[in-house]
């Protein structure tokens, strides 16, 4: 702790920085509105995809490969077809001519290898769980039985499981093109000079373990056709993207295909995908002319929902002896798994501009190599690239602090961008528009009781207490609000990053909002209602938000990357502005004045200096009646807006974690956790807190519990929730959360996004705390998840050394 941070200073700084905005007296934005979504979810009236029941519905099950890598020499589905209740059974070969290849929308380099990815394997399987055949039956039970009647012969091929082995000369190949998917580089500044001249150098290797996203709702698909048009319900985050991709993949014309994301039970990136099961269900309803449903079991999902993370990270920091960073070099190996799915290769690159974190430096060097293995493909998982970046830099900053015998908060303070330096263009080329790292950190330290905990830590160390205390800090930023389309284009992504919103004021003055964002737990129906209520001056209750159905919301880019409010919400707000301008013209016409003389406030249009006025509800009725509208005006009070963000947004914050580590067993207990996040202006603090809580829990879970483990043959050992450990309420503490607020300058409301912040910040805070507890024992790293056994082994190795 530095002396400048005595208690008085802290209190003063907090007072100065504590500019968390209050809602205006009649305002909705900033209110802790209870959610509109809750009633149906709480009373069991939800429409999950598996709840959808259509007349004549048939049930689909997939037979999956038990081999990590093998040639398929024979598939015989004839016996399955004979079983009672079985309507059809197909092998991959049976569908080969029409099933196409699952899309990868992000060819990150010119020379990237994008292998064919048939939804059902035809000649070769490349991971355990890959679909090889399917059956369609009159109920789920008979479909499950029929799988056992399918015969498949495999000729084993060597599994490829380790990334370094995969890249070695003569390694068995996952694909004919080899095991390297791509190498992507970025460099800025003179890294060689930094490395040569700087007196301090930190070289570390960190493992981002493979994770299973584990949304509580397993995936499900319902597909039906009337012979000409097709409708699909899917537990997806991306109904709009899915529709485009299914049209391109299956040849069903886009205008004949409707995709609906009904109530969706969480995603965390795992439902940002175009899946084999979606494609096959569409082909099955086309072939059979009947509605089909597929619902995955959890053990099937652990095998076949795309996994997350799985990187080997080499990070080098070159620094001066006073702790100032000169440069950072990052080399990544990223496990793509067996195929490139929708955005697989791009995920690590979402972190490419984030390894510099919140710090200033002269040089930055980033290289990322994507590697094929015979495992489930990886793809987006909460944070997607940014948690990995934050983990590496925040872990390495602690190592730098330890090397220099400096407080980890102080080493950060010496390097971060100061609040008066914004907007600041970083070494990675991003322009951080706003932020105040000092304010968030000071507030977090005060809430945490940093000095007191450090004193207790010293005491426990002196007493050689078997239970040691560790303190971990993580000061993060992230880029979210994905994304300016021109930036996505420059990164070779296959689509834009805009979002669409429509607002229509109905004849009775009620408002329907259509959003291209596709909520699956985020509370958009509530938050968008708050935005619109303020913008149009209508009651919160008078707003309905429609989403998740391409027939209703015909244009959208969906929900991921903490983009919904920053892009989708702002599109809705932009549509509100257009509605207001139109209403102003009608008001002026009705009140016989010029539009410039009409003022708008809280739903009422008034003629300046007179008492004449019209409410927006009256104007909506006038537009509907259309008896007397301005010349040339169409008789409707609605507007659309498609908004492309001008920049990313950059939430930031400081998270502090205290852990008790039992040095006898290796058991870790989180003693306290404080998060102070700056997510800009807040529309609904209740929802923001919920997002932060959940994010922290998921980040802690990566630090302590979760890991997808494959054995030497490529079998997934963690295929059930009994083996893939997710924390329950009993395993987590209460979190102390607070906020500071520096509005974003890139959108009119100053919002930044909050969906991923907690996950990004918390993982390094926890691991830094554990390592901090163990440092006096000579331990400088624990690989995630920091299991008791790993901690015990690290301690034992040091003790023996």
């Amino acid at each position, binding site marked *: 702790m530095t002396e400048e941070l005595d208690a008085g200073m802290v209190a003063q700084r907090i007072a100065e920085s504590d500019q968390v905005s209050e809602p205006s007296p009649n305002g909705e934005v900033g209110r802790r509105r209870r959610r509109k979504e809750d009633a149906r979810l709480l009373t069991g009236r*939800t429409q999950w995809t598996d709840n959808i029941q259509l007349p004549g519905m048939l049930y689909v099950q997939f037979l999956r490969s038990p081999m990590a890598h093998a040639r398929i020499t024979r598939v015989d589905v004839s016996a399955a077809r004979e079983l009672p209740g079985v309507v059809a059974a197909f092998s991959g070969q049976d569908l080969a001519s029409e099933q196409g290849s699952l899309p990868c929308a992000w060819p990150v380099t010119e020379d990237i290898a994008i292998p064919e990815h048939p939804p059902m394997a035809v000649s070769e399987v490349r991971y355990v769980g890959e679909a090889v055949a399917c059956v369609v039956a009159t109920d789920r039970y008979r479909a499950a039985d029929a799988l056992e009647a399918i015969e498949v012969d495999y000729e084993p091929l060597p599994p490829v499981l380790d990334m370094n082995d995969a890249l070695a000369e003569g390694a068995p190949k996952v694909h004919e093109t080899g095991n390297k998917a791509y190498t992507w580089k970025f460099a800025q500044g003179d890294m060689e000079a930094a490395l040569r001249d700087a007196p301090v150098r930190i070289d570390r290797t960190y493992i981002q373990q493979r994770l299973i996203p584990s949304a509580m709702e397993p995936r499900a698909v319902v597909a039906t056709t009337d012979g000409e048009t097709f409708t699909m319900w899917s537990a997806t985050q991306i109904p709009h993207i899915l529709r485009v991709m299914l049209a391109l993949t299956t040849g069903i014309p886009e205008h004949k295909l409707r995709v609906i994301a009904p109530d969706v039970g969480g995603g965390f990136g795992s439902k940002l995908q175009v899946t084999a099961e979606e494609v096959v269900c569409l082909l099955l309803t086309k072939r059979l002319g009947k509605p089909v449903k597929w619902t995955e*079991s959890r053990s099937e999902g652990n095998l076949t929902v795309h996994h997350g993370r799985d990187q080997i990270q080499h990070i080098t920091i070159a620094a001066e002896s006073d702790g100032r960073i000169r440069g950072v070099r990052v080399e990544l190996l990223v496990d793509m798994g067996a195929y490139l799915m929708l955005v697989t290769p791009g995920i690590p690159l979402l972190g490419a501009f984030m390894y510099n974190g919140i710090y200033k430096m002269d040089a930055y060097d980033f290289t990322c190599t994507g590697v094929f293995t015979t495992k489930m493909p990886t793809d987006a998982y909460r944070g997607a690239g940014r948690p990995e970046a934050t983990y590496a830099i925040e872990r390495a900053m602690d190592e730098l602090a330890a090397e220099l015998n400096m407080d980890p908060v102080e080493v950060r303070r010496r390097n971060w961008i100061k609040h008066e330096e914004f907007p600041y263009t970083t070494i990675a080329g991003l322009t951080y528009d706003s932020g105040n790292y000092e304010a968030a950190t000071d507030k977090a330290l005060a809430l945490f009781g940093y000095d007191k905990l450090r004193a207790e830590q010293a005491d426990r160390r002196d007493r050689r207490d078997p239970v040691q205390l560790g303190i971990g800090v993580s000061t993060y930023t992230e880029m979210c609000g994905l994304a300016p389309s021109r930036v996505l284009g420059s990164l070779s992504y296959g689509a834009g990053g805009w979002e669409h919103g429509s607002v229509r004021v109905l004849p009775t003055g009620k408002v329907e909002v259509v959003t291209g964002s596709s909520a699956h737990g985020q509370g958009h129906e509530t938050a968008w209602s708050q935005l619109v209520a303020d913008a149009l001056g209508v009651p919160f209750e008078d707003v309905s938000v429609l989403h998740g159905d391409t027939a209703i919301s015909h244009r959208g880019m969906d929900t991921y990357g903490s983009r919904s409010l920053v892009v989708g919400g702002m599109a809705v707000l932009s549509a509100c502005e257009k509605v207001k301008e139109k209403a102003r013209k009608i008001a002026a016409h009705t009140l016989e004045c010029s539009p410039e003389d009409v003022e708008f406030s809280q739903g009422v249009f008034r003629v300046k200096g007179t008492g004449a006025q019209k409410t927006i509800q009256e104007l909506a009725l006038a537009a509907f009646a259309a008896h007397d509208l301005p010349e040339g005006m169409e008789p409707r009070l609605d507007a659309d807006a498609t908004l492309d963000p001008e920049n990313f947004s950059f939430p930031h914050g400081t998270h502090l974690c205290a852990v008790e580590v039992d040095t006898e067993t290796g058991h870790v207990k989180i003693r306290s956790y404080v998060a102070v996040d700056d997510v800009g202006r807040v529309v609904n603090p209740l929802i923001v807190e919920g997002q932060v*809580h959940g994010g922290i829990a998921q980040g802690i879970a990566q630090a302590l519990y979760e890991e997808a483990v494959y054995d030497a043959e490529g079998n997934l050992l963690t295929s059930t929730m*009994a083996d893939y450990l997710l924390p329950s309420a009993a395993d987590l503490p209460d979190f102390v959360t607070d906020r500071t607020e520096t509005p974003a300058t890139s959108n009119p409301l100053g919002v930044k996004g909050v969906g991923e912040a907690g996950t990004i910040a918390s993982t390094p805070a926890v691991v830094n705390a554990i390592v901090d507890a163990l440092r006096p024992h000579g331990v400088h790293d624990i690989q995630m998840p920091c299991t008791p056994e790993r901690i015990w082994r690290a301690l034992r190795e040091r003790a023996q050394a």
Partner: protein
Amino acid sequence: MPRITVTVDGIRYEEDVEPRLLLVHFLRDRLGKTGTPIGCDTSNCGACTVLLDGKSVKSCSVLAVQADGCDVVTIEGLAPGNGQMHPLQRAFHEEHALQCGYCTPGMVMAALDLLRENPDPSEEEIRHGLEGNLCRCTGYCNIVRAVRRGAQEMGQAQEAGQEVRTP
């Protein structure tokens, strides 16, 4: 096929069932009571929790034939109707104890069972009482708060002589 008689949310059903039919599939596929979802196949997640003869069970790990003659209460049977919610459901709403809502039916039923045994639980007791129900969205903080609030409101409602379903 065995014939079973089961009362679900106050309605008596007589159905012929395959012995292997899981109670949760009986509820969802046979009776159309889709308020109870399925989240796993190893009885870890608790999303399918219902009350069977007044006690919480995971309906994915009970055969429908085992429920013959029993009384089942699901999330759909909790609210008194006419748009009202049970005090515990209301507490979940007030405390923002749900996001995607998939774990919520099971979480509410498990919490109700917890409060049946312990009407005034501490935070620690709530956390341990809900150890069999996984939520991926909330980090549990608000769930714990909701259960405490629900406990208070159920107590107050009972003192006021209102009927609160505590099976």
